């Protein structure tokens, strides 16, 4: 018999849209469902397949419930005291012997801001290291880098619903209907309203189906394509001369570069007249918005791809008002927040650079550290830390990440983890990565803690505790508070999530006005919000850009090939992405019955002609190989991908990332997850 029924309004733990939903709690302890929160201005109660089922994994019996220590190759249950003493002594020993660069801290984008802030503060205060990074590195790192260079702020310029104020929506390398469904809804609403939609994507995606105009181009040729669009816009005199004159710099450099891109058909596969047509549609719309995603960023040209979109938007004056802008759709629920919190190797919270002496001094004062103790060097990034194991990096702490599945080159990652002297993995379930740990710590999931997620539109959404975590699990920020106490560190005496948040606010001018009390309103706040009276900033760069000189910057950028292109041995191009039914490495979504029913196994999309030529049948396992590994997905034969191109989602072990390339974008250190060369073969009976 049900004694009590409670609705706890909170934020979905999946993509970066940040939908509000109600967790339904029976008798104060049992999570029994998700119900619509119709009051939410973000999603108005509507949810996607993942949001609908996001409660299902929470109380599964496989949850980690106690700290585990590996003894003689086996995990043995331990007390928190024992586990934390061991971690403290190992990390201290390593630090004393090998210095601050011998430690690596990896922060998750699926957990609350408070956890992210706590971990980076711990790394910096306890071990004076900037070797702290989060998994934005492998999704939107180039957005942070590229948009900062172009506009002075590395975040989305306009909120999701603002597309309804546009006269034209252009999506590039983005499939929100699957990857960000409630942002996809805004596109569907725009379509019903009659707003023209252009989708530029090598694949005929679910979002491309909604488009009025779908442009297919060769994978990873964005810079050539966008340069050519700008060539036509300038040639036809459709650029916004007044905006360029008053609000930007570098136009002459851009103009000189794009002169060379009149005809890019050989690179992009798109004839000049078609490029011109799309370019003029964008330029002639009164208010046009650009939405992009990982098709732009996860390449060795990621930062330049992002800056190219910055160029295009400024060329047509499409920044700083309703209905315009350049908006990255952030992948994970808190990928914006993890970056904002300073879980980054070169900045503190609010993007305050570690290289600036005043910033270090300020943090030293706030964190009660001796002057000159915080490091000024650019720390090692997420995947760099991995490739430095066995060399510089000796011990690592991974919070809520599953690198064996989610980082490029799984075989390489496994070998890298083996080389560590000491590894801590803090998570909610055993994963493909936990076997490599020396200590496993049980964290809590979104339903079991208070906190905040910052959505891709810079809106800070409240996460509210609905039920207790299982067994001895604790809030992840509390782990750092507990170990800091053991190590005699000051500044970690938090009692509740709000204390951690307020600790962050105190050192972060751009979020100082965002108290929990203000965030509790369904509308919440978009940062920057520097004072208690400030209403928040849904739209950036209104009067001037966020850069120090107030100007936007054009860059003349040349097209470069991906690091690894198809050749005789590996004749196919592999693109990667997501499916609507899974979140990342499926730790959570594979435990939702219907999601697992929909996509229980990895598959690869292959073009009809290629399948015919290779004798591949629908739904048979095929062998896909790259220079780094192999995978045996099911074949899905479709014309959604072009001949010579494959598409595989990133969710499965021994899947896409067994194949992907580790080459880095020099500016953002983004690995080239979206493009590598592979071979395909029918599996013949053994």
């Amino acid at each position, binding site marked *: *018999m*049900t*004694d*009590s*029924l409670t*609705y706890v*309004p909170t934020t979905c733990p999946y993509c970066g849209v940040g939908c509000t939903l*109600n967790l*339904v709690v*029976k008798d104060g302890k049992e999570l*029994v*469902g998700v*119900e*619509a*929160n*119709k*009051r*939410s*201005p973000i*999603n*108005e*109660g*509507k*949810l*996607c*397949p993942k*949001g*609908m089922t996001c409660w299902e994994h929470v109380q599964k019996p496989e949850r980690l419930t106690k700290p585990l220590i590996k003894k003689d190759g086996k995990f043995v249950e331990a007390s928190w005291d024992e586990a934390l003493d061991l971690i403290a002594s190992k990390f201290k020993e390593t630090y004393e012997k090998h210095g601050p660069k011998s430690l690596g801290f990896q922060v998750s984008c699926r957990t609350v801001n408070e956890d992210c802030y706590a971990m980076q503060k711990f790394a910096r205060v306890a071990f004076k290291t900037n070797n702290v990074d989060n998994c934005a590195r492998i999704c939107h790192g180039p957005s942070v880098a590229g948009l900062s260079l172009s506009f002075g702020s590395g975040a989305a310029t306009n909120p999701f619903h603002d597309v309804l104020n546009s006269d034209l929506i252009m999506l590039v390398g983005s499939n929100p*209907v*699957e990857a960000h*469904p*409630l942002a*996809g*809804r805004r596109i*569907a*609403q725009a379509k*019903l309203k009659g707003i023209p939609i252009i989708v530029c994507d090598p694949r005929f995606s*679910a979002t491309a*189906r*909604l488009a009025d105009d779908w442009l297919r181009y060769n994978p990873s040729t964005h810079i050539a394509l966008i340069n050519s669009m700008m060539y036509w816009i300038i040639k036809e005199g459709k650029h916004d001369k007044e905006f360029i004159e008053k609000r930007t710099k570098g136009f002459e450099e851009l103009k000189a570069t794009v002169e060379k891109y009149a005809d890019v058909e050989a690179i992009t596969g798109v004839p000049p007249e078609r490029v011109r047509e799309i370019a003029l549609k964008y330029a002639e719309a009164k208010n046009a918005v650009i939405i992009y995603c990982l098709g732009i960023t996860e390449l060795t040209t990621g930062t330049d791809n992002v800056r190219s979109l910055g160029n295009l938007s400024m060329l047509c004056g499409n920044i700083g008002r309703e209905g315009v802008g350049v908006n990255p759709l952030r992948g994970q629920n808190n990928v914006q927040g993890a970056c904002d919190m300073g879980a980054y190797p070169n900045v503190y919270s609010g993007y305050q650079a570690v290289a600036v002496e005043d910033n270090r001094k300020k943090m030293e004062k706030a964190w009660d550290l001796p002057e000159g103790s915080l490091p000024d060097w650019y720390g090692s990034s997420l995947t760099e830390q991995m490739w430095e194991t066995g060399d510089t990096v000796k011990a690592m702490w991974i919070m809520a990440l599953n690198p064996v599945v989610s980082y490029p080159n799984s075989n390489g990652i496994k070998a890298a983890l083996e080389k560590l002297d000491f590894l801590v993995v803090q998570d909610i379930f055993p994963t493909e990565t936990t076997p490599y740990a020396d200590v496993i710590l049980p964290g809590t999931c979104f339903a079991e803690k208070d906190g905040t997620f910052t959505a891709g539109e810079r809106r800070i959404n409240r996460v509210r505790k609905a039920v207790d975590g299982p067994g001895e699990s604790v809030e992840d920020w509390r782990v750092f508070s507990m170990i800091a106490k053991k190590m005699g560190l000051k500044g970690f005496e938090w009692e509740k999530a709000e204390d951690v948040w307020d600790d962050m606010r105190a050192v972060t001018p751009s979020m100082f006005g965002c108290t929990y009390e203000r965030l*509790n*309103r*369904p509308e919440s706040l978009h940062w920057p919000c520097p004072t208690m009276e400030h209403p928040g900033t849904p739209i950036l760069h209104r009067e001037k850009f966020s850069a120090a000189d107030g100007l936007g910057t054009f860059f003349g950028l040349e097209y470069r090939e991906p690091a690894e292109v198809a050749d005789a041995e590996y004749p196919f191009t592999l693109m990667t992405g997501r*499916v*609507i*039914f899974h979140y990342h490495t499926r730790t959570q979504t594979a435990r939702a019955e*219907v999601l697992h*029913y*929909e*996509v229980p196994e990895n*598959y690869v999309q292959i073009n009809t002609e290629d399948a015919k030529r290779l004798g591949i049948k629908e739904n048979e396992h095929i062998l896909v190989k790259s220079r780094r590994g192999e995978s045996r997905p099911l074949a899905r034969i479709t014309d959604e991908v072009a001949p010579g191109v494959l598409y595989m989602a990133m969710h499965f072990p021994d899947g896409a990332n067994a194949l992907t390339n580790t080459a880095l974008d020099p500016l953002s250190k983004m690995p080239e997850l979206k493009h590598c060369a592979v071979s395909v073969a029918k599996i013949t009976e053994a």
Partner: protein
Amino acid sequence: MAAKGEMLYAWTNDPNLAAKAECGGAVTALWKYALENKIVDAVFAVKKGADLYDAVPTLIKDPKDLDDTAGSLHCGTLLMAKLIKKYLDGAKDQKIGVTVKGCDAMGIYELAKRNQINLDNLFLIGVNCGGSVSPVLARKMIAEKFEVDPDDVVKEEIDKGQFIIVTKDGTHKGISMDELEDAGYGRRPNCRRCEMKVPRQADIAAGNWGVIGDKAGKATFLEICSEKGADLVSKAVTAGKIGTEPANPKGIEIRGKIENSMLKLADKWRARDFEALGEGDARLQYILNETSRCIKCYACVENCPICYCETCSTKNPALVPPGRLPVSPMFHLIRLAHVADSCVNCGQCEENCPMEIPNARFMHANQVELQKIFGYRPGRDLRLPILALVEEKSERARLAATGSDQIYLNVFQPAQE
């Protein structure tokens, strides 16, 4: 003593509650009495969440908590029926009092026919409902049409064909629903088409329509619809919890007029909405086009008061291949085939749809067509629907045991009108 069919004005005798209530507080007073005297074990009602645009269902066991549920929230677009099945074990193991709108009552009846809710364990107090407004649209409407900051609104109501707001400083402002709805605001589309303004299948149908004279704003209109309802009112009067007097005949007449005018308006909306769908092949094409946006969230299935199967045909891989977008058109055709005869037009399949598919409009249009042919009106009483029902587990067991794929053989019972 109150009797079935009787119409009364009623009010709470508790001055604190009277101050909080909007029109007499009789409903809250009756629930309080029912809880205190174990006539029900719990009351399932709606309270204010983040603000007056946020309606949150709440299960109340302590009579003190009932005060939170007083007053109406026109932005409450919840459907209580499915929640009772999902979270309260279908009222199989406790007696629950439920405050219901027309759609809630109809949904409860349809779920009761399918053995998903034990109607004997429910006590229903219906409330008149002219329709509800989705919270986000309400705020937009208040900002854009009323030119008022929605956070400054302290009370909203729908009265005499107007949506009326009261702001912090006590100012009233009303705009006619027709004007709002022509401009794309106002009630949910299904509410506009709704023909269940006074839920008389509840034990008591309550509301403020028809309360006139010196009792206006101070009493609740009660129409006693069952012996159970009569009994509760009589006992509450005897216990001194509520006061009653016979409803003013003029008030009864006015109430009827309000109801009739709303029904006429609903007819207008039905004609308008269904005409836009076209007929025959054109309608099918329209449905296929709109549903092609589906992303398979299953919210339409999960929230539908007709859907109850443990194994849903939309999850039969032979009918709807799993894991694929766009979704096979069979997904929505299955829903139309299985649900349309009994659709109560609660609107949840549309309101919860993330891809803006007007599901309720299709379903309701088909329900109306089927009603024309078979005469079955869902949600009004306990008559069985056109599609025969099976007890799923035993039917599946029978099929497995006999090797037959012919379901419904032993249970087909066409509805009688």
